[in-house]
């Protein structure tokens, strides 16, 4: 835990990760409620707040999903307290219907800040969509784009006041390079007094007002006032926002516009290129600061825009420039001048500026023989489940059980989590994934097409609580036969092992009732439910066979703690770690079952001696390979 976030030491400079800085910003901004569902790159915001929540008077929670999180966060604003809701970009899609309504109908007296982690390049996501499109076009709410941890803190803090002034949620659009950047942050003052909660929503009185006037609620009026009032006021604020900065001398031909972390890339590229260009930095990207943009358009001949990942600012700029300065040439993603997708970096920015100015640049070149060696081994660090991962055993069990049915093909569907890797060789138990909850969801349709092959949906514990339950009820409701495999590693593992309703404790570390997955499954109307330990491989294969043969919807729950978390807890408690396993070379017959069917990264093929060997630096001592070795060559060291 980074205790720095609660230090009452204004002016002190400390090292904070962007996500921790958002947490500090919420504390400085007198936030009293915070909710989130874990998602990389923004997970550590709630982790940090949860750890210090009691010290700073914030009521913090991991919610079951982002839709619940935004309802809860906005709910708190109707009691007059300031509230923070955190998610990654995928989570914003879950918030869409509530947020449109909160936008049109207005939030409560307390400010509402959304801290959203977009993931340009999709480092830890199933796509890299730009959630600013939703914020700007669908929710129609102001967007702030911090470039570094200091701004992440400052913008979050300022967001609450702005939210209360404009009576709208404020969208803090973070990206992976801001969330996961760690930098020095100067701390601000901590609030002295908490607000007393008072339930006073204006929704019904607003509705009654309109009913008296129009006979019914005038939805067009609700929408219209966003444009004639909120966005106008926000536009004024944007002109004066201290991190909307125009650096201009008046004699530059080129103007560069950038938001978020791209602002740093532009600064560094310009200093490396040693050229004179006007530079409009946008800390607040929606609404655009029209006065600054006008000044830029009047002065330069060409404008180059850098933003991740969609041309959100560029589009606004183009439509504004069409009337204001039709002769200024604008370069960006829309005319294909800069990459239309993916993350940017100093090099991309530098090369693009140089290309526009026909300027030669010196690049760093790798030595040819070294680069060639590296590129021929570039794919060796393949994505893989960790040594000891219970999902590997679960996948192995399911594959054995499925193939024992005498089928060659099966319809396996995966979901969002570490277990996504069960779809890859050598396990390969599914061939399709979508988004949170999509496995059981799609199985509902696949199983009804009349295909002969077994249909199996794989879903994680946290994902099941998040989005699996309605789809499982749907299966019972519509008499649909398929098998659901719930992979319960007792936490939200992929994002850093945050608690979920089955963990027994909350984001603040309070003990709480465990909502058992098997109870939920039964309550969904499923008759066949078995809870198994995936480390008991042979026994589990037999039970899985029965589940697959069951004539109606069946569920298997594989329960075993994430091996990384298990080791982390052992280390933390100062307990001894399980001993690694080793292969007895005189017994190993070189069959490669442990490599080709199980695929633990700790097992290595010694081609010279035609034996498997175990890397003791990687082995975590789960012993699963000893169970599957057909000649019993593997023993504890």
């Amino acid at each position, binding site marked *: 835990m980074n205790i720095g976030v609660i230090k009452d030491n204004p002016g002190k400079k400390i090292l904070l990760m962007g996500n921790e800085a958002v947490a500090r910003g919420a504390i400085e901004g007198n936030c009293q409620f915070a909710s989130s569902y874990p998602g990389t790159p923004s997970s550590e915001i709630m982790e940090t707040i949860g750890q210090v929540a009691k010290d700073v008077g914030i009521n913090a929670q991991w919610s079951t999903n982002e839709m619940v999180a935004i309802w809860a966060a906005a709910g708190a604003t109707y009691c007059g307290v300031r509230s923070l809701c955190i998610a990654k970009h995928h989570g914003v899609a879950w918030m869409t219907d509530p947020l449109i309504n909160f936008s049109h109908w207005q939030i409560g007296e307390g400010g509402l800040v959304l801290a959203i982690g977009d993931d340009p390049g999709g480092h830890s996501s199933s796509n890299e969509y730009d959630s600013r499109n939703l914020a700007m076009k669908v929710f129609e709410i102001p967007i702030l784009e911090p470039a570094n941890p200091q701004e992440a803190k400052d913008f979050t803090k300022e967001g609450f006041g702005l939210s209360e002034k404009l009576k709208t949620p404020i969208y803090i659009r973070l990206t992976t390079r801001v969330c996961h950047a760690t930098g020095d942050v100067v701390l601000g003052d901590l609030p002295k007094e908490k607000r007393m909660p008072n339930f006073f929503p204006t929704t019904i009185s607003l509705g009654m007002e309109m009913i008296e006037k129009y006979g019914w609620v005038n939805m067009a009026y609700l929408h219209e006032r966003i444009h004639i009032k909120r966005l106008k006021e926000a536009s004024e604020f944007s002109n004066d926002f201290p991190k909307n900065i125009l650096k201009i001398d008046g004699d530059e031909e080129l103007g560069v516009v950038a938001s978020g972390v791209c602002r740093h890339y532009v600064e*560094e590229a310009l200093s490396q290129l040693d050229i004179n260009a006007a530079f409009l930095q946008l800390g607040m990207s929606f609404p655009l600061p029209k006065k600054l943009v006008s000044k830029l358009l009047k002065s330069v001949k060409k404008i180059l825009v850098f933003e991740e990942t969609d041309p959100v600012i560029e589009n606004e700029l183009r439509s504004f420039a069409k009337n204001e300065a039709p002769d200024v040439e604008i370069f960006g993603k829309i005319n294909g001048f800069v990459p239309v997708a993916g993350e940017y970096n100093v090099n991309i920015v530098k090369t693009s500026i140089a290309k526009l100015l026909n300027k030669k640049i010196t690049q760093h070149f790798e030595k040819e023989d070294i680069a060639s060696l590296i590129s021929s081994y570039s794919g060796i660090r393949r994505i893989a489940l960790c040594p000891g991962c219970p999902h590997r055993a679960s996948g192995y069990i399911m594959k054995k059980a499925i193939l024992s049915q005498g089928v060659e093909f099966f319809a396996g569907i995966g979901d969002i989590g570490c277990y996504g890797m069960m779809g890859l060789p050598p396990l390969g138990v599914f061939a399709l994934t979508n988004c949170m909850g999509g496995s059981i969801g799609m199985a509902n349709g696949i199983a009804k097409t009349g295909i002969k092959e077994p249909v199996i949906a794989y879903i994680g514990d946290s994902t099941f609580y998040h989005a699996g339950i309605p789809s499982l009820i749907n299966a019972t409701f519509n008499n649909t036969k398929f098998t659901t495999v719930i992979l319960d590693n007792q936490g939200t593992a992929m994002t850093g092992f945050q608690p979920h309703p089955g963990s027994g404790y909350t984001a603040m570390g309070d003990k709480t009732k465990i909502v058992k997955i098997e109870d939920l499954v039964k309550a969904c109307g499923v008759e066949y439910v078995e809870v198994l330990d995936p480390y008991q491989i042979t026994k589990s294969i037999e039970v899985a066979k029965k589940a697959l043969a069951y004539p109606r919807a069946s569920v298997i729950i594989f329960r075993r703690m994430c091996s990384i978390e298990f080791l982390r807890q052992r*280390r933390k408690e100062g307990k001894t770690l399980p001993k690694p396993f080793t292969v007895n070379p005189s017994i190993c017959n070189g069959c490669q079952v442990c490599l080709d069917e199980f695929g633990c990264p700790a097992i290595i093929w010694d081609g010279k001696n035609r034996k498997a060997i175990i890397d003791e630096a990687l082995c975590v001592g789960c012993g699963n390979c000893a169970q599957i070795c057909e000649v019993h060559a593997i023993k504890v060291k």
Partner: protein
Amino acid sequence: MKQDFNVIVAGIGGQGNILVSRIIGEAAIEFGYHVLIGETFGAGQRGGAVQSHIRLTKEKTYGPLIPEGFADAVIGLEPFEALKCASKFLKPDGIIITNEYPIIPSDKNYPDFEKIFQFLKNISSKLYTINGTKIALDIGDVATLNIVMLGAAYATGVLPVKEEDIKKSIIEKLDKSSELNLKAFEKGKKMIKENKR
């Protein structure tokens, strides 16, 4: 104060390079630097290539990633990752400190070991190597490898930080296992001396 300084810790997910970067970052703040640390990730949390880019600047903050050819030093937790990183990011006169112990994929598809070190040497004459993994295993926990390598890097004198600030940060961050890790730091510091290639 010294000049702006860029260093990258290159390794495999799970080797603890992010912790090392934070320890260096905190010690650098004490020295008056602006700090910005970024990460690059390969596939997955564990087992993929991970780099931590540490940027120490005097005046202004830049973006969290070091541009190609701008690193003053590379600390390798794994030799092939050190080579990949140094080839792309190291300045012509930069320094390399790397663990010798390779993490070899299951299919043994891994470059020739001697070639890696020969190429590392071609990139920089300032090359230091130790078997940090073996040292960590001897200490009693392979997880201390990162701190062994931090000790080694510190001993070369390249890091613009004070030893007492590093140790303070290790104690703060590693709590119960800090004793073991301080031992790892000392061991790395001592071992590197005889190991300039």
